[in-house]
């Protein structure tokens, strides 16, 4: 196993390793992260990265293929624009985690703050705690699963992403509505929970939210506004 001690080695050294084939299938330990920014950003090969401690901004951004575990909390912009692979945070994640992310799986074992999954474009997110306000704003596709509650304006201006929420939303955003939980949704949720290694959760407690699709098209009734 390779170990990067960020008290002595630079984040750039770590990230350049993750950009190269030399760490393919390797296990990489990162110690003393000390809240530094941009740790394990842009990984491009299948490898396992274990970060022992709290990380700062933009950890695991643009991740492709790597499995990244953070044994601590994550600062703003976790897994931003992730493409594939998995990111798991044992603690809490700060604002706009998984923003604009295209693929892969993000698991937050604690809470995620405001704007979780903003403009998500295909990623799956499983938050085992609660999420903050304006989460899934303009979420385009992908799935957001939340065990706890959601803050204000959940799913504002949402497109085709699907939200599965066990707790209560403080309020729903514009054009976001509750939708029926059909068998195919229960199956989808079950698969997501299995991928996230989340056990002991009763699928029947979850409700589904998505787009009312009222904001998609121009409405002739609004012609007088122009």
């Amino acid at each position, binding site marked *: 196993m390779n170990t990067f001690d960020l008290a002595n080695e630079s984040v750039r050294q770590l990230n350049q390793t993750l950009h190269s084939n030399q760490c393919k299938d390797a296990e990489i330990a990162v110690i003393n992260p000390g809240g530094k920014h941009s740790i394990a950003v842009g990984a491009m090969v299948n490898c396992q990265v274990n970060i022992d401690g709290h990380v700062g901004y933009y950890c695991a951004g643009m991740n492709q293929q790597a499995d990244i575990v953070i044994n601590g909390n994550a600062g*703003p912009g976790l897994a931003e624009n992730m493409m594939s692979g998995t990111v798991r945070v044992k603690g809490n994640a700060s604002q706009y985690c998984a923003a604009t992310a295209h693929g892969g799986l993000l698991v937050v074992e604690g809470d995620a703050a405001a704007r979780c999954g903003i403009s998500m474009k295909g990623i799956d997110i499983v938050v085992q705690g609660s999420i903050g306000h304006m989460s899934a704003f303009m979420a385009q596709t992908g799935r957001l699963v939340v065990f706890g509650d959601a803050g204000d304006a959940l799913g504002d201006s949402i497109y085709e992403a699907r939200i599965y929420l066990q707790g209560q939303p403080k309020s729903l955003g514009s054009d976001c509505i509750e939708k029926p939980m059909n068998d195919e949704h229960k199956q989808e949720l079950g698969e997501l929970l299995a991928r996230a290694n989340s056990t002991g959760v009763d699928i029947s407690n979850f409700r589904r939210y998505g787009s009312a699709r009222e904001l998609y098209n121009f409405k002739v009734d609004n012609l007088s506004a122009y």
Partner: protein
Amino acid sequence: MCGIIGLYSKTPELESKLGQLACDMLRQMTDRGPDSAGFAIYRDQVEDNQVKVTLRLLDDQADIEPIRSRFADKFGESARVEQNANHAVAVLAADKQSVADWIKSELPECVITSIGSAIEIYKEKGLPGDVIDQFGFEAMAATHALGHTRMATESAVTTEHSHPFSTGLDLCLVHNGSLSNHNQLREKLRKDGVEFQTDNDSEVAAGYLTWQLGRGATLKQALEAALEDLDGFYTFAIGTKKGFAVLRDPIACKPAVIAETDDWVAMSSEYRAIAQLPGSEAAKIWEPEPATIYSWGDD
């Protein structure tokens, strides 16, 4: 962008190291604010009949001796004036308002950065590390301290525009963010007698709190009113005589982290500042909720 740090000691043992630890935190915030830096240090509380005033000398090369003798002439031989770079701390046996009025009218070569019984505010242009060295913050023992690193977005890079801003007796404010209704609010407050030194938006937030407190509001009431009247983005840290308070705007774009152990409470814009503190890995760490007031101490 700006950086904020706050550190509050829960044990007397930590007080001797508080300056050192707060400096370690502030240096981590250099990337967020390389333009200027400032500290509010709470230490050496004066007697009940005394007042402590921190002054900034407008001329960096000014001789302190004439100023010292004028304090002695006015307030008696017990008046102490100690210089620290281009700042000075005066401890006097006098009424706070009369001291403030006298300095404003009789010492045009100085401006008051803080007034109270424990607070001292120092601020200056330049890299945080240089400002720390200039004033020797690391050697200062204190009960608690707030620090700020500034990256100017709304107004000029000058010492006057730097934080912390005094908001009343033993009170100060540091701000990360930008206010959008500060011009309108400044004019309104000026009509009510609040004085401003600059066109800085954060100074308006400080002036607003001063105005609310002057009308008899508690700090909590003043901050609740600020949520209604201040438009823009902010994470505020407010230093009080016995502790500090933290408030984020309802949108909460501007970052903030709070951490607590048995020995200390700390807040910062980022965890990497808190990571400098002993025991930080095992601390209780959380992100303050939007539009929610957090406070320590008895104020």
